[in-house]
């Protein structure tokens, strides 16, 4: 009888109202919250668009009237298009990694997790290059409204990608150590949701900050 009671308690313990694991609900709530976070950042950029009193500017060249120094348009669409492509491909790799974990395919789960992390790191490399070249071209976070809003929006996105890469590396480490099983698929799934969300945010940022003149 005591055993029956214990078994029942354990059955209770794993019961969830929706049948979904807690982490999945929580990540969706988190993503909802993050939408408002990035919406606030992007809106600020758009509100301040064209209001900087000094250059350099995103899409047009500018000559400083006091020094006569010439600054070209800051944004480099071809380079960022390439980095956008890299990030979007990482989402594909993420999907393949999740699918490999679900069928206990250790070889391919490791390959695709590593690929996702590598593509994420490549994106961060692009961003580091982009930030450095912008600073060389005369745009710092303190320069003008464009600099402040641009660096903070893309910087926070980059921070999210960094967290994602660390998460991927941790998962890859666990996979190398003991092999991810279908029981771990939910954890990969939650990570994938985060990763795809960060990608989608980049699509919004690329469109609204880079492409719209």
């Amino acid at each position, binding site marked *: 009888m005591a055993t029956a009671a214990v078994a029942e308690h*354990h059955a209770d313990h794993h019961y969830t109202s929706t049948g979904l694991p*807690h982490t999945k609900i929580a990540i969706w709530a988190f993503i909802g*919250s*993050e939408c408002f976070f990035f919406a606030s950042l992007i809106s600020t950029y758009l509100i301040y668009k064209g*209001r900087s009193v000094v250059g350099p500017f995103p899409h047009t060249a500018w000559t400083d009237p006091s020094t006569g120094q010439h600054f070209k348009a800051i944004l480099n669409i071809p380079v960022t298009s390439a980095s956008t492509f890299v990030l979007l491909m990482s989402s594909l790799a993420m999907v393949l990694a999740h699918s490999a974990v679900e069928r206990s395919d250790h070889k391919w789960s490791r390959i695709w997790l590593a690929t996702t992390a590598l593509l994420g790191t490549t994106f961060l490399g692009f961003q580091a290059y982009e930030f450095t070249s912008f600073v060389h071209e005369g745009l710092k976070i*303190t320069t003008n409204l464009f*600099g402040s809003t641009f660096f903070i929006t893309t910087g926070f996105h980059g921070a999210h990608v960094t967290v994602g890469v660390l998460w991927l590396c941790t998962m890859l480490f666990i996979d190398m150590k003991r092999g991810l099983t279908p029981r771990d698929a939910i954890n990969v799934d939650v990570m994938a949701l985060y990763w795809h969300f960060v990608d989608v945010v980049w699509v919004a940022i690329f469109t609204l900050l880079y492409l719209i003149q």
Partner: protein
Amino acid sequence: MATTVAAPSLAGPKHKYEGGLWSWLSTTDHKKIGQLYLYTAISWFVIGGIEAAIMRTQLYGPNGRLVSADTYNQLFTMHGTTMIFMAIMPLSAAFFNLLIPLQIGARDVAFPRLNAFSYWLFLAGSLFMNVSWFWHAAPDSGWFAYAPLNTPQFNPGINMDFWVIGLQILGLSSLAAGFNFITTIINMRAPGMHFMRMPVFTWSAFVTQFLIVLAFPIITVAVTFLLFDRFFHTTFYELSAGADPLLWQHLFWLFGHPEVYILILPAFGLVSEVLPTFSRKPLFGYPVMVYSLILIATLGFGVWAHHMFAVGMGPVADSIFSVTTMLIAIPTGVKIFNWLGTMWGGNISFRTATLFAVGLVCLFTIGGISGVMHSSPPSDLMQTDSYFIVAHFHYVMFGGSMMGLFAGVYYYFPKITGRMLNETLGKWHFWLTFIGMNLTFFPMHFAGLNGMPRRIWSYDANQGWDLDNHISTIGAYIIVIATAIFLYNFIRSRGHGAIGGNNPWDAPTIEWSMPSPPPAYNFAKIPNVTSRYPMWPATGPSPLSPPVPTAGTDQPLPTHPTADQLGIPMPTATIKPLIATIGLTLAFVGLIWHRQIPIVLLGAAIFIASLYAWVLTPLEPEHTEH
């Protein structure tokens, strides 16, 4: 029908985490975390109250010189910030923690360690902001800290640095708790606990969590901009760089107005529990009460600019925000009438909890009506930034939120501690609070309409404000006395109050089915819920008899079998959330204290290391079946 836990007296072996300071530092039990929230929030309520009492003493007569103008700025900023972020919100959080799992039939929240982390962050953020007093450098730009008053150009001291960082930490705490409670309510309801059977407090908590997770990111962004302006010289609020000072106002109030509902909805929920129990009737119009909560929350995101009529947004924007603000009065009015409908024809028993709940219905209505008055821009232009506004939001926050929360404290104290609060002292507390609060805040309407601006540190005689201010100050002292009575009652009754038993009020919801205080595992067997009011018979409750126990006693509380004895797996106690909080706080201390990068990095390292240690450790000890 909910099952009650049998209460045989079994003395189990003591777990190493039971009892003592260590058990509080390492707890992951939602009831203990709820109590930590409760005690901390009451402490901040007292401190915020002392700040208010000093201000009222200063304003008692014309040309008061008790404190300097500079100190006065710090006092009103910290009074507002403390009461909102460190008293009312955490008091609500105390009830979220204490009640949500009990009301939905769960053993704990979805993420017990994240829950502990939320509490420690709240404690860290509130302490962080308040240590500024020791340098006489408390934040001083007002609780909504308008740009450019908050920028380094106009506020070069360290004061607003404390505010910026303290608010970020408090925001993280609320967000973490928000994700946790949303998951808990969606995913941990007992079998049969459909959404439309959930107790209305849990509904109000559910809606509030959505407001929190959607509104706090906005203030996080606004404050992050300010943090960058102050620490790294960016230009977000820098007027000479072309920044728009209204950016802060829009972002702040986009958060700030939902925040108002974050403060009031939990109190509405508590009142919706108290009134049915003491009227011996089910809540009138349960579904409409739920829909109106959702409607208030949704509309709450579309009214923010009514705080900004005076900045000249133009007739179109003014009209839109005026209309949405008037609209939001409709679901709020629905709630008021449904509470009246609940009491109507009921067998009302006027306990202290009932009094406070009825107090909310009366006083919030007054605050609500003055709110509708300044939803009209022409009228608002006469009232804005005057004491009329101060009167309005104190009727809403004190007459509304605090009254509701006090009702909750009196109602749930026996469930939380096993003992009753003293009713006689409780009634003294209520009547003195009620009288004191009206004396304090009602005359402010007249002072405001006679032109007294808010936030002035001193005023000249013969402007027609003297009498109003005399009365206000006397009223404030009466509130101080009332609060002292409450504190005495609260502390004394914890050890010596009458023993309440499982369900001293013959209340209808399932949190009353278990022993008081609940054992660590809450429900020995997860209940199967079949109705909205499982503890009441289908024919309706009988009048509140036998009479509620009142005689204080030093008798020990009955004991119950432990989780180990019942074989219920429980989360392991852990100190990692506390260490993570210390790391994060250390990083922020390094930032504010001469920008010490090594300290920032050390704090970040501690934070990340403890986060990894926490996430990679299973929540519960391994069981044979795993």
